[in-house]
């Protein structure tokens, strides 16, 4: 399904000899859906424990690109990828890659809160249970820890057996974050995690993301310029499948190199 390059070993050597360590590394990535090219030759390096924001108008490829890192595009018909994506120096599109293992390492939070129609506890325990963890004590511990990390524990600790669907939208989204954290990934992909939420819930989640940076490498897709400038260290601007500019957030928002970036940020198009 995916065309994968083969000079893996050569690449790895070059990579380890560079002084700077990257958590994520994409090189010359092209993505096609049938005849349509959604990503055009994008290369990008992401440092550990940083927050990177992907911005750009709808259909610019940012969602497609973020979904490459946990291989969620694999389910799309006619999906084809060229180039290389590495996490911790491991090619994740290699023949030996276990997609399930990869996704334990790379968690994802989606645009619309999508809790399972199960209890709050079951939602958070899901990722652990599918790994075969049955010990009730361990599960309880990890669920509590994840809910605390997601800043939801105090609101739900007395109702862990209540249906997750009874929670508010903002709570549901934090539950989805807790569910992802419970698996203990090192990378967190967030695809417009606050676009369906009200400002107060959004503020809560932004604060949460800020705290999570300590332990996770975070990539967040957002349509909200203020959000990108508030929470991210780096910002990548995508347009028509191309990576137009990728730099420190402060630089992008105060003194962008490219005219297109400036136009988008100032709201002149998109």
């Amino acid at each position: 399904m995916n065309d994968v390059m083969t000079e893996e070993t050569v690449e790895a050597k070059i990579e380890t000899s560079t002084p700077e360590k990257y958590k994520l590394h994409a090189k010359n990535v092209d993505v096609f859906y049938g005849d349509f090219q959604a990503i055009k030759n994008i290369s990008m390096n992401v440092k550990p424990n940083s927050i990177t924001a992907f911005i750009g108008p709808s259909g610019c490829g940012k969602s497609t690109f973020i979904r490459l890192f946990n291989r969620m595009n694999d389910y799309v018909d006619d999906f084809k990828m060229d180039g290389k994506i590495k996490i911790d120096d491991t090619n994740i599109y290699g023949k030996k890659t276990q997609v399930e293992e990869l996704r334990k390492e790379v968690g994802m939070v989606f645009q619309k809160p999508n809790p399972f129609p199960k209890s709050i506890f079951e939602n958070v325990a899901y990722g652990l249970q599918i790994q075969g963890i049955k010990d009730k004590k361990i599960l309880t511990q990890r669920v509590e820890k994840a809910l605390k990390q997601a800043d939801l524990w105090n609101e739900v600790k007395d109702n862990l057996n209540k249906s997750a669907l009874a929670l508010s939208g903002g709570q549901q989204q934090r539950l989805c974050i807790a569910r992802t954290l419970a698996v203990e990934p090192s990378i967190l992909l967030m695809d417009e995690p606050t676009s369906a939420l009200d400002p107060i819930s959004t503020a809560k989640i932004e604060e949460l993301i800020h705290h999570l940076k300590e332990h996770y490498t975070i990539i967040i897709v957002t349509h909200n310029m203020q959000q990108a400038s508030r929470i991210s260290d780096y910002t990548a601007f995508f347009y028509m499948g191309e990576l137009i500019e990728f730099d420190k957030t402060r630089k992008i928002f105060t003194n962008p190199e490219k005219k297109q970036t400036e136009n988008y940020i100032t709201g002149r198009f998109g």
Partner: protein
Amino acid sequence: MNNIRKNKIKDQAFKALGMLFTFFGISILVILIYNIVRVGFTRINWDFLTGLPSRKPEEAGIYTAIIGTLDLMLLTVIFAIPIGVGAGIYLEEYSKKSKLSSLLEINISNLAGVPSIIYGLLGLGIFVRYFNFGGSILSGSLTLSLLILPIIIVATREAIKAVPPSLKEASFALGASKWQTIRNVVLPSSFGGIITGIILSLSRAIGETAPLIVVGAMAYVPFVPHSLFDTFSVLPIQIFNWTTRPQQGFAVAASAAIIILLLITFIMNGIAVYFRNRWQKKLQ
């Protein structure tokens, strides 16, 4: 102004027409049931339910037919559910979209519309003759299984299709394999729909007469089946047989048997509705 009034009149007219058609459909059903109940209701008693078939209309009972029907349904369920649900899951979740799969898809839907007597002939050829199961309850239930398989497959697929893709994505994103996702997310969410499809398909199977006659079900069976290879009778065949007799008493008995058959069907549909509502509630 004029236009709005015109539209309002059209709206009212369509509403009235719709009501008329609805009442038409319902009134036919009501008349039918009323007639049957009027003729047959007094005939229903314990002796009728536990009696064996007889030449004398006032002594005839439907015990063997009821047990035959229930046994036949049970066997049909055992054969048809795993195959039908399994095929539905495979087609919806595993098979790649290709020319072959869309060809399969169309043909399965077509199979659901094949006249049941054709299935009877198929059963006669394969189960009765080739496998030499004879006119047994095994042949009958296998034939009915074939008959309802397409319905179950289509219902399963529809139910699985209705599961929000976002839930599947969530499961995959947490590191679940395909089977884990199906087992823990897809099936629980589509359970209500699948059960509804199964029970509705059984409601169809329970009324089938033609394929069972072809396969060799008997109208007169003085004992209940004890093994898979015993001959059997079912309610629709009993009813069919009685309605062909000249004695008025058998017409009464047939009406009574129809009431019982309807009752079983309604109960099964009731269970389907119950499950569907329960699962819809749980999903919200």
